[in-house]
Every structure is written in structure tokens, then in C-alpha cells.
């Protein structure tokens, strides 16, 4: 019964910054276990939408519900992260002066008490989980290196690894393949598809080849609301989508 409830439910959400409507009456429903790709030109409101879901920005109006009946507009970033929403930023954001392993350690699911962290020691189960994640994101060999020394693509993977360590119910992944080589892009698609087997995922991406590889339902945003929704072929055949991308 509970499985029938959508993992994420946005209805009539709007938010303005200094009179500019970044999100305009946006509605979107993501089913449990679904992976969704979000496309749209610059300024379409993709990142603002993620800010609203993760509590960074409060909507002026509209409803945002997570996992059925949790009202996300009443929670802040840390609460929402603990409720089970993980986020990867557009610009890879990792802790540069920490090792790869420590980055994952700080993300690892568990109690988030600053004072308790003073006496927190790594359990064998945590160590095993770290090793597993490192293998998944192909960074086992770099585990003791500083994150600052990683290549751009490796930082993207590390951030995805941090998401995995959090083990959230819903992953928001903003431009995971920006700045990656073709081989890395293919690898990332494989990784995300693997993650999507056990999690709900929203991926924002410009790279159409990558979106095609994911092979999931696509939502095209424009000026803060949904312009078109369906398979990639359906969306890219939509005359309005073509106009938005190419201009008239």
C-alpha cells in the first residue's frame, strides 16, 4: 500500500527572486524506484528546483511532499538530508583537503552529532562499506590521496560515491558528466543505472547522448515549469522543445 505513494510530489510550486519567477507553477511526480532525466536550457529552473527539494530555497507557494506525507517546505537542509535526500552539485563539491576515504567517511550513513564524532571510531562494518563504495566508483587505488588531486571526472565520481555512502532514498544528481570524456560518460551512465535499481534518482543533464544512454522518462523544463514530458524521442520531437533549444 505504502509503495503506491510517490517518492516526490511537487504541485503548483512557484518561487521568485527579486521579481524574477525562477519556478512558475511547477508540478512533478516521481514514483518510487523511478529514474528521471531533467533537461532544459540554461535558466529553465533546474537547479532552483533542486534547491527547493533540498530545503535551500523555500517556495513562495505550492506543495512539496517527500515519501508520501513529509512536507519538505517545513524542513531545512540538514533535516532533509537525514530524511533521505542526497544531492550532487553541478560543480563537483568535495572536501579538497581530505583524502578520498575521509570524504566518504563523513558522508557515511549514521548519527550526525558533532560532539559524538569526537569519540567516533570506524567500525569494521563501516570499513567494509567504504571499501565497497570505493570499488564501485573506481577509486580504490586513490583512497589515501587528497581529493584536491583528483581529476574533474574522478571528483564527480567521488561525489556520487558520497551520495552512495549517505544511502538516501532519493538522489538528486546535477550534471554528473560535465567535463567528462566519452569513456567516463559511458561509465557514469552504467553507474547511475546500477544505482537506480535500488534508489529513486533525478538526473539533470545537458548531454543528450548521456540521457539517451540512461533510457528513462524525460522532463523538459522551460522558464520554471514543465514544457514536455515523456520518452526522449517524444520530447525531442516536440515542436515547443525544439523551439526552446534552437530559438525561433
Amino acid at each position: 500500500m505504502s509503495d503506491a505513494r510517490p517518492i516526490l510530489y511537487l504541485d503548483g510550486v512557484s518561487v521568485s527572486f527579486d521579481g524574477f519567477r525562477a519556478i512558475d507553477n511547477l508540478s512533478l511526480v516521481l514514483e518510487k524506484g523511478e529514474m528521471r532525466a531533467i533537461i532544459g536550457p540554461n535558466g529553465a529552473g533546474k537547479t532552483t528546483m533542486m534547491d527547493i527539494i533540498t530545503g535551500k530555497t523555500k517556495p513562495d507557494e505550492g506543495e512539496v511532499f517527500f515519501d508520501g506525507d513529509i512536507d519538505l517546505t517545513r524542513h531545512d537542509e540538514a533535516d532533509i538530508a537525514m530524511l533521505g535526500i542526497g544531492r550532487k552539485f553541478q560543480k563537483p563539491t568535495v572536501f579538497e583537503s581530505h583524502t578520498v576515504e575521509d570524504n566518504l567517511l563523513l558522508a557515511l550513513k549514521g548519527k550526525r552529532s558533532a560532539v559524538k564524532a569526537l569519540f567516533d571510531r570506524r567500525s569494521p562494518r563501516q570499513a567494509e562499506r567504504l571499501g565497497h563504495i570505493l570499488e564501485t566508483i573506481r577509486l580504490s587505488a586513490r583512497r589515501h590521496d587528497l581529493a584536491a588531486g583528483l581529476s574533474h571526472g574522478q571528483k564527480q565520481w567521488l561525489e556520487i560515491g558520497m551520495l552512495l555512502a549517505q544511502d538516501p532514498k532519493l538522489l538528486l544528481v546535477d550534471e554528473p558528466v560535465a567535463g567528462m570524456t566519452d569513456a567516463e560518460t559511458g561509465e557514469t551512465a552504467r553507474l547511475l543505472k546500477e544505482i537506480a535499481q535500488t534508489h529513486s534518482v533525478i538526473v539533470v543533464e545537458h548531454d543528450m547522448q548521456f540521457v539517451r544512454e540512461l533510457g528513462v522518462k524525460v522532463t523538459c523544463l522551460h522558464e520554471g515549469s514543465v514544457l514536455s514530458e515523456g520518452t526522449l524521442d517524444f520530447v525531442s520531437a516536440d515542436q515547443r522543445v525544439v523551439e526552446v533549444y534552437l530559438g525561433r
Partner: protein
Amino acid sequence: MMIVRALADGFTWRVAAAVLVLVAAAIVVPVLNLSVPAGSALHVPTYAVTLFGKYLTYALLALALDLVWGYCGILSLGHGAFFALGGYAMGMYLMRQIGSRGVYGNPILPDFMVFLNWKQLPWFWYGFDHFWVAAIMVLAVPGLLAFVFGWFAFRSRVTGVYLSIITQAMTYALLLAFFRNDMGFGGNNGLTDFKDIIGFDIQSDETRAALFAASALTLALGVVLVAFFVKSKYGKLMIAVRDAESRTRFLGWRPENVKLFAFTASAVMAGIAGALYVPQVGIINPSEFAPANSIEVVIWTAVGGRATVVGPIIGALVVNWGKSWFTGAFPEFWLFALGGLFILVTLFLPKGIVGTLVEGWTARRARRASATAEKDVEPESFGKDEELRAEAAE
């Protein structure tokens, strides 16, 4: 057992060496002062014991600042306030110890209160005739102020230069408040003319040597504590908050709590430093709250190397020793020298003395390691490099 192991984990050789040196100093210096006759070349004169005892309390203050600035990214320009508050708590105890030996001979009221025609002791002076009450206040007053201040500031997400400015405003407000006679802390003159500390004559060589030893041992304890903080998962969290605060938030941590804990712990450390400082210099007055004092602490920490455990101690000792020497030799030029030092360090040693040494040492080790690794593959890869370069040139 777990705590012992956790403590041992935090010990790099630099930390261990610092603790060892401080403990040795706590034993050797008093012995050389008290047991070696004044004529001997090994004799340490009492003025030097007191002077370096004072420097050690400055070093503890710098270490406290390093915990919040170096590791947690909170540039506090008001740490002198916590130092001064700890100093005032100790000063109040020392005032009550004077008893009827004051100029006016009042057994209860300190001289300045008699002078102001006060008839009875203000309520906040109660209990300060007991050392343990004063000791608790040394910890509690700076800690509480930091907690309340930090609770509001960090929760409102005040960061960066704005936070620095309000810490500066905090210490300035306290400076003005403590200048007022009505506050009941001796106004402009502050608290002075101390006689005894826990029953010992505060002027005697033995007491001064003991205060030096207490300062050195407390600093050693501070080093152990900061090293333990830094090496723990909490320490990693502090650095994470320093480098990418919003990222920690999206991982579910509350950076405001991380900062609040560091800020409060650091304020308590600063308070202890102040409490050890006052009996050695013999006075505490509102000038200790001066914003310039807090800024000097930042300079010591930067010179020594922030985000290192040993750096701020070396910075505080070097700069203050330099100050004592300089103000004797060229009194008019000290502030220019201090300003120049800060500029030179910022330009040429952005990581401070210790930070630069550590970096150089690590880089040399890395170069050696890669040199050894390269030896086996050198001829072939070298040739390849040449080819690639030739191709690139075309």
C-alpha cells in the same frame, strides 16, 4: 582504554615533541631558577621565568584561536575578550585574597569599592574568596559567553568577514563596559596589588616558578587536547565545514553545531590562558579587551602557521620575544615591525613558519618516493616523452 587509544592516534611526532619540550621546561626552568645560584651561567633569572611564563599563556591563547580559525575557518577577532574574562575571574579571586591588607584595610571590600563609597560587596563578587569558585568561573564565563554568542551567530549563518566584525564589536563592547566604574570591576584601573594565591606569596620566586610550570603544563595539556580534536572524526568535520560548509549541510551535518562546539571549547581554553596570565603580570584591566590585542593573536597564529598544532605556539613565542627585544632596542618602531612581519609572512609564508616547513618536508619526501619509483621505468618512458614532445612541436 578507548580514550587512551584515541589520544595516541592524535600524536604526530611534532605534537609529541612539543609536549615533551613543554613538560621538560616545566621541570628544568624552575630548577635552574631556584636551585642554581645567581652567579652561575645556568641560572635563569626570575624576571625571565615570569616573562616566558607570560609568553606561554599567550601561546595557549594562540592555540585556542587556531582551533577555531585554522581548523574551523572562524576568524575570531575577539578572542582577547575570552582571555580577559578568564583573567578577570582570576583577578577577582586575587582581590579577595588581599583581605584587610589593602590601603583602606576593609576586610571584605576591595580598595576601589571603598574608594567609590560602596557599602557592600556586589552579588557577583560573592564566592570569589574561594579558589574553586573562581576556577569554575574561569571556565564558565568565557564558555557561556562564547556559547550564547555562537548560538545566535552560527544559527543565523553569519560567516566570513561579517562574523569577524561582530567578534571585534563584542570585545570592543566589553572594553567600554569594563571601563565604567559602576560595573564593579575596578573601572579604568582594573584589578591589581595582588598579595597571595592559594596561600602563597604571589611575588616570591617559588610562586613565580610554580606559575611558570603550571603555564607550561597547561599548554602541554592544550596541545594534547587540540591534537585529539583534530585527529578525531570531529576534526575532519571541522575542516569540512571550513572548506565547504554547505556541502556538510547537504550531508545532514549541522555546521552551526560543529562551529559552536569548537568556539566554546576554544573560549574556555582562552579563559584558562587569561587566568594563568593575570597572577604572572600582576594586573588585569580593560585594556586587555582592546581590539588590537585580539588582532595580535591572529598575527601570532598566522606567523607560526595556522591549522598546525605546534605553529601558533611557535608564532606566539617568536613574535612576543621579538616584541620584548624590539621595544627595548627601538621602542618607536615596534608597530611598524609587527605590521611588516605580518605582510612578509602573508606574502612569502602564507602557511606560516611551521606550515611551510611541513609542506617542504612532505614535498621532499614525495619527490624522493617518485624518484625511486621512476628509476625502474626511466629509460623507456623518457624516450617516449621525447617523442611526444617532438610530436607536439610539429
